[in-house]
């Protein structure tokens, strides 16, 4: 690490404040749009943490994949299902937040005592100079099978997401017996609404 220690500490404190504050905002804010953008703040701050941990390649990957893809996808989902509805209150609905807060605080206390009481064996070896080269060597030598499986997993997830999210319009009646030689997808275009419906002929 070539940055001075004071700069590291100040950056660490700032990033900690941003991460914890934005995460609490993601969980507790009423407006889901604010939560989506604050999640982007958490992800960007996490990339800064990775830079403090000498991982430039993973920080870039975090920015590209998380902020560029996952967060944008989440904001798109918010826009698509942005229906302002007031959820009906549950009977004895206060039990769940209170008990969950107690469990979370207990879990944090347990983790904190474990972290502070464990004697970690800190290595004093020099940090890998070029992390991207080292990660690439890992990918193509001892992590080759997980690497290829990850590509297959991404393909499966993409196809699955398209199939799940697609609107299915199954035709009501089957075509006649003589017309079955033309294969079409089992979906029909949605009927246009408003003034465009009268001007354009429907494709029935």
């Amino acid at each position, binding site marked *: 690490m070539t940055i001075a220690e004071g700069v590291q500490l100040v950056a660490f404190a700032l990033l900690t404040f941003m991460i*914890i504050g934005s995460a609490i905002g993601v969980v507790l804010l009423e407006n889901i749009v604010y939560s989506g953008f604050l999640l982007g703040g958490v992800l960007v701050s996490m990339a800064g943490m990775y830079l403090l941990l000498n991982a430039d390649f993973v920080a870039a990957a975090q920015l590209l994949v998380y902020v560029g893809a996952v967060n944008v996808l989440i904001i798109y989902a918010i826009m698509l299902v942005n229906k302002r509805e007031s959820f009906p209150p549950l009977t004895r609905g206060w039990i769940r937040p209170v008990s*969950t807060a107690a469990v979370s605080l207990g879990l944090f206390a347990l983790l904190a005592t474990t972290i502070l009481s464990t004697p970690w064996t800190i290595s004093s070896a020099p940090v890998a100079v070029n992390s991207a080269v080292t990660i690439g060597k890992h990918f193509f030598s001892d992590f080759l099978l997980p690497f290829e499986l990850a590509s297959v997993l991404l393909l499966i997830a993409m196809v699955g997401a398209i199939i799940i999210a697609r609107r299915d319009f199954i035709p009501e009646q089957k075509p006649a017996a003589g017309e079955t030689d033309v294969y079409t997808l089992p979906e029909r275009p949605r009927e246009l609404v408003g003034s465009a419906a009268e001007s354009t002929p429907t494709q029935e």
Partner: protein
Amino acid sequence: MELQLEYFLLIAAALFCIGIYGLITSRNAVRVLMSIELLLNSVNLNLMAFSNFIDPEGIKGQVFTVFVITVAAAEAAVGLAIVLAIYRSRNTIDMEQFNLLKW
């Protein structure tokens, strides 16, 4: 005073607990997915801290983090597709209404 391993682990633990709280208490389905992202990020921070402080030569933790990021991207795509499909069929995103399989 230098940056220690314990600082990063404590922050990751705090972020994990916040994610658990949001995962259980939120009733908006999209917010549940955001909480899952928080959980995955806290685990990633753990892996990166161990990679830097305990295994600085091999940096296998960074390799694991890249895999976790990949799986998180796939999970987000499929999860949001499922949320969209449920929203179309039930016309709500309240987690309490998704009880078709509940006894």
